[in-house]
């Protein structure tokens, strides 16, 4: 059965690694639905979150192939239920919408969104949440003709109390030292 999987990849920060990782997906004709890359809590270690829809059998193989890449330290996969995740959306709405009634204000309050910037021409609203929520807000705001809209990729935390990688890195250092 196909479902959404979140693949977390911890890697060294090397030029070209993103390319190597995406090749693992493109070679198997798997579409990347969301991709976020940034430095992790551990200095020098980068964290990728890749969201794909596939079967568990396939995601296991893909994670195996990613872990095989020399500069990848570790990769994991989780279902949506196993993680806490958010996306960020920004909406630019004409300023008249705010002046003419309190609808925009009510929508913003109800959606737990916030206003980032107000100028003479427009107001910028920010909302974090799942795609259904940010999309619903877009539909509501669009009665005022949204001028620009953008949504980020997904960021996520596991439900584990600690970042598994820090434990793993310690173990690996000890293991590699034991090989000498």
């Amino acid at each position, binding site marked *: 059965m196909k479902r959404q999987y979140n693949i977390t990849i911890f*890697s*060294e920060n090397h*030029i*070209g690694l993103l*390319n*190597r990782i995406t*090749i693992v997906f493109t*070679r198997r004709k798997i579409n990347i639905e969301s991709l976020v890359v940034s430095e992790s809590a551990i200095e020098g270690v980068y964290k990728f979150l890749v969201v794909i829809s596939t079967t568990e059998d396939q995601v*296991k*193989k893909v994670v*195996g*192939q990613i*872990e*095989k890449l*020399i*500069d*990848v*330290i570790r990769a994991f996969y989780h279902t949506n239920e196993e993680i806490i995740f958010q996306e960020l959306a920004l909406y630019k709405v004409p300023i008249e919408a705010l002046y003419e009634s309190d609808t925009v204000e009510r929508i913003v309050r109800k959606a737990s969104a916030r206003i980032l910037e107000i100028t003479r021409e427009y107001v910028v609203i920010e909302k974090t949440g799942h795609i259904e929520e940010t999309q619903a807000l877009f539909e509501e705001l669009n009665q005022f003709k949204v001028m620009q809209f953008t949504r980020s990729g997904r960021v996520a935390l596991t439900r584990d109390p600690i970042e598994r990688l820090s434990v793993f*890195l310690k173990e*690996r*250092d000890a*293991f*590699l030292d034991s*090989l*000498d």
Partner: protein
Amino acid sequence: MQAAKSLKLKSNYMTTKRIAGSQAVILSLLEEGVEIIFGYPGGTIMPIYDALYDFDRHINHILTRHEQGAVHAADAYARVTGKAGVCFATSGPGAANLITGIANAMMDSVPLVCITGQVASPLLGTDAFQESDVVGISMPVTKWNYQITDSKEIPEVIAQAFYIAQSGRPGPVLIDITKDAQISELDFEYKKCRKIRSYIPETPVDPFKIKEAADLINTAKKPLLLFGQGVIIGNAEQELKDLIEKTGIPAAWTLLGLSALPSDHPLNVGMLGMHGNYGPNLLTNEADLIIAAGMRFDDRVTGKVSAYAKQAKIIHLEIDPAEINKIIKADIAVLGNVKKSLKMLIGNVNENKHDQWIQRFRDCDKIEHEKIIQKDLYPEKPGLTMGEAIRIVADETKHEAILVTDVGQHQMIAQRYFKFKTSKSNVTSGGLGTMGFGLPASMGAQLGAPNRTVVAVIGDGGFQMTIQELGTIAQNKLPVKILLLNNHFLGMVRQWQQLFFEKRYSFTELQNPDFITIAKGFGIPGHKVDVRDDLETGIKRMIAHEGPYLLEVTIEKEDNVFPMVPTGASVSDILLEP
């Protein structure tokens, strides 16, 4: 000897302290014990070639006629010696010409270190003359690659390249060095790479898994061991032999596992897969236990996966975690170095015999012999067969030669009928099936094993893909024996057209040149055999000849390779005739 040389060189250079990046490349290669480089110079790699000029007594450089020739030669050198093969190419077309050979090495887990020149770093991305993004192009077909733009990185990156190429499951690595990094200076100091934080070459073997595997082996009634190239790469030939002798388990080989176990070993039951032997294919679907050692269940081995050994438990001994459950689910997966896992298994298994089970293989052999092998090896029809030529070459070289093949019908026939006594004696393009591999590979095999007879068996199609390497063979006086099996067809494709496309021979017939005259033009003597009476003397003359030699044998035009597991069929539906 090499170590002494390199120490001396180092001390000479240490006094000079600062050296150019190009010199650092050569010194780094010497530190890694490199004795031979296959390559082709050009604009952006000229500083490295200039540095090499001073080291011609320490490193042998073989100038091939095409970069593809260099990379295939380096590949074969690595297969025969177990050390990384090294090749050089310039940027742009030179680097691009390596790609087929790198892909070939990647598929067959061959350690290569390819060094390419690149345009100077300020020109990167400007579509400069002979610029190509070789790091990008080679990414899907390398184990690792890296672009050096600063000469200071050279020693460390080359050390990592050799470590990555040769450790764990080996593979090709490419280092792209910009011209300015070759020219600028650095303080040279070399330290071999021993570990990389993000890379675990092999995991320690889990003794509990060994115990579980041994329990299955001890209770199995119809066990079958399948061995692949992992046994050869891991130098585990003796452990394989000890395990099967202790347990009495019959063992069958994949294409690349061939030569790991002597051909005449009583427990060697033959070849797996599409054109493998009848017994091991048929009985794969009767065995109650399959022990896969250093092999990856390639589709040419498994046939239809959903009908593959469903009745059997599977033990998979494998170094690469990504191979576990990739194609065939393992009941017990033993991760780690196959030499270690086999050794641990030997200590945990009981002595046993499986005479009745082995008799089943013998019975199959008898059927295959009557229906196919006898006719292949001792034909009664007038046309010559590939099988009889291979049989005579194998006998005349006392089963001690290194066999190099190209890809196609002749390859399958050669693998089936050539006999081996020692490991690392079979050099063939397995996973990628690269036509044109044979001739350049024979050069690398000969240079890797200068005291052994190297026989290159090649078809008329593949021969013309890299025929220019006759020039390299002649220039370097490499005593390669080239057995050209000429059926004037792209034989394997023609066979499929006959069997599956109603004999519609779409673009498979070849009008060939006079190969003997071509070889003569390169300075290589040769002889053409058209009739059976001339075959044995022709082969004897080739083997006895001191230098390189081309023997062309005219083969029956429309012969087929059997047995055959048709694509999409189960291994037990193997055909003995059309």
